[in-house]
């Protein structure tokens, strides 16, 4: 039986601040009119009302991180030559990620399958993953852009999380999900949950039951692929897209990156930064050839990756967790649900046509 505790509303912030003495605490706080995951301190304004504007992915995959440093110096033996030294810079900060939503945590499982794949371990990601406790906060008021229940998730699910917080009367029930979440909670000065876990369970069920009952978006890999050469379809759905990339930057499952060097004098760094498959440059080759030179081709790859290629490679798991941030923040109101629904309808209509 994993540990269950209770924390009253007025004790939450002091407790989180006490954690900052030994580790970084990332939590949704108000920053310049937005709610973003940022390091918590005494001046932070915690905001647990709804989904943060940006996902929590930067906790494990920062927007920009140094992979290693390099330093050129004059060779002592042969003055006309330069020596070069490389220095790894591995992340080592213990972190408590608080207030991620179930969709955010599920996004980490999408990363795990790619960044921690057997012998191919991305040690930057894996190191952060190992040093980060993920505490999710069950959703009690999903927005109408939320669709986690259509992509294999739910407002009280715990995939990718170590600890689950559920709002109950006067505070939160805090339940361990993993062994390490359990070990952490056992050390914390929180009171026993007692019979509040039942109340928490009912809260989660009620929210889950209240979500709109619409067709799941899983299992449509082949439908998306069937439309690959349907130029009219992809151009139609993409016509208003601006290729701005807001969807990918805010997405909890988009993990593509770029690697570039920066140098000043003799010292430099190789950095990794988020990249965006909606950008023309993403696939532009040295020869000038670009296999995805139109935004329709790029959208096709983005939708294909999330709903066809990724699930094909990873046991049917989608690379979409239904957070809806891409819908909320798209400047031209594109809706990924509508795109995927249309793709399925189009493919089904084609099948029927073939069968006629």
């Amino acid at each position, binding site marked *: 039986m994993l540990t269950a505790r209770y924390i009253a509303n007025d004790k939450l912030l002091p407790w989180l601040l006490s954690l900052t003495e030994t580790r970084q605490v990332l939590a949704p706080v108000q920053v310049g009119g937005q709610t973003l995951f940022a390091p918590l301190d005494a001046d932070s304004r915690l905001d647990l009302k709804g989904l943060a504007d940006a996902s929590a992915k930067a906790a494990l995959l920062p927007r920009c991180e140094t*992979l*290693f440093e*390099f330093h*050129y110096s004059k060779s002592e033996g*042969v003055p006309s*030559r*330069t*020596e*070069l030294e*490389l220095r*790894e810079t591995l992340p080592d900060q213990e972190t408590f990620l608080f207030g991620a939503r179930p969709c955010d945590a599920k996004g980490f499982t999408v990363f795990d399958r*790619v*960044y921690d794949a057997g*012998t*191919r*371990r*991305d*040690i*930057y990601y894996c190191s952060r993953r190992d040093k980060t406790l993920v505490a999710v906060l069950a959703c009690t008021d999903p927005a109408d852009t939320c669709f986690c229940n259509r992509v294999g998730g739910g407002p009280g699910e715990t995939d990718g999380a170590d600890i689950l917080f559920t709002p109950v009367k006067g505070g939160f029930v805090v339940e361990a999900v993993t062994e390490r979440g359990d070990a952490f909670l056992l050390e914390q000065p929180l009171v026993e949950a007692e019979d509040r876990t039942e109340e928490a369970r009912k809260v989660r069920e009620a929210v889950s039951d209240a979500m709109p009952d619409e067709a799941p978006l899983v299992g449509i890999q082949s439908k998306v*692929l069937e439309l*690959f*050469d349907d130029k009219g379809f992809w151009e139609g759905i993409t016509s208003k897209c601006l290729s701005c990339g807001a969807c990918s930057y805010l997405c909890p499952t988009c*993990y*593509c*990156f*770029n*690697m*570039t*060097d920066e*140098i000043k004098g003799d010292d*430099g760094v*190789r950095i*990794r930064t988020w*990249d965006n*498959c909606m950008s023309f440059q*993403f*696939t*532009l*080759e*040295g*020869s000038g*050839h670009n*296999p*995805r030179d139109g935004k329709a*081709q790029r959208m096709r*790859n983005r939708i*294909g*990756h999330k709903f*066809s*290629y990724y699930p*094909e*490679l990873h046991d049917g798991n989608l690379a979409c967790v239904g957070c809806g941030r891409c819908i909320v923040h798209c400047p031209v109101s594109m809706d990924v649900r509508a795109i995927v629904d249309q793709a399925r309808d189009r493919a089904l209509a084609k099948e029927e046509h073939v069968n006629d």
Partner: protein
Amino acid sequence: MTSTDATNLYLPDMATIQEVIQETSNIKTFRITLNNPDAMRRFRFEPGQVGQLSVFGVGESTFVINSSPTRMDYLQFSVMRVGEITEKLHKLRPGDQVGVRAPLGNCFPYEDMKGKDIVFVGGGIGMAPLRTLLLYMLDNREDYGKISLLYGARSPSDMAFSYELPEWLEREDMTTELTVDNGTPDWKHHVGLIPNVLKEMAPSAENAFAVTCGPPIMIKFTIEALHSLGFNDEQIVTTLEKRMKCGVGICGRCNIGTKYVCKDGPVFTYAQLRQLPNEL
């Protein structure tokens, strides 16, 4: 253990440029050795695998290792000057330091090719990946049937590996044909497009593999020519180029559907290519 199995996928091994060969006006070949002698001694790769070369401060780019695993005195990369990183590489001299992450990707099916006749068709810098397999086969000559090479370039001065061509032309255990789009008065070989010369050569498709690499338009018409000679899709092998960054199938840049060229390629049979979504 190879570099890609090591703990940090992105940390290059340091290497020293031993020799720079000016192949053509815009292609240079770099012969490098890893600075760590143990790493150099342990280094293993298979024909067709690629590596990421780093010029620290500019970045990293992908090139095929075009030396042969049978000749491990150095690792050889040929670089056409097309952008920022290749421009910087072209400025480097023997003794300069580069980073290398290798080997990456898959290799030519050289085991499946044993006992078969092999037809190499290379165009321009596309000769580089073929060279590694050709040298490997020449060093294991008894394992393979007839070996023929058709290598073409725009003009005689655009032919890379020109210092090796006389030997290949003279060898009795292989057939070598050279062609250029534009000849010069002293050019003694073919003048004409590669697919047309290939049809003239008319290699038999029976018990054979064709390996082709070059500009996309050349590959397209070479495959048509191979089909007309009776080669089926499983007998045609090529390599793909895509913009790559991580080189290990994570960064998401070089995918064609579910396949990542850096990890599942760069070598594909034409039959495999036809299974992929049409996005080359």
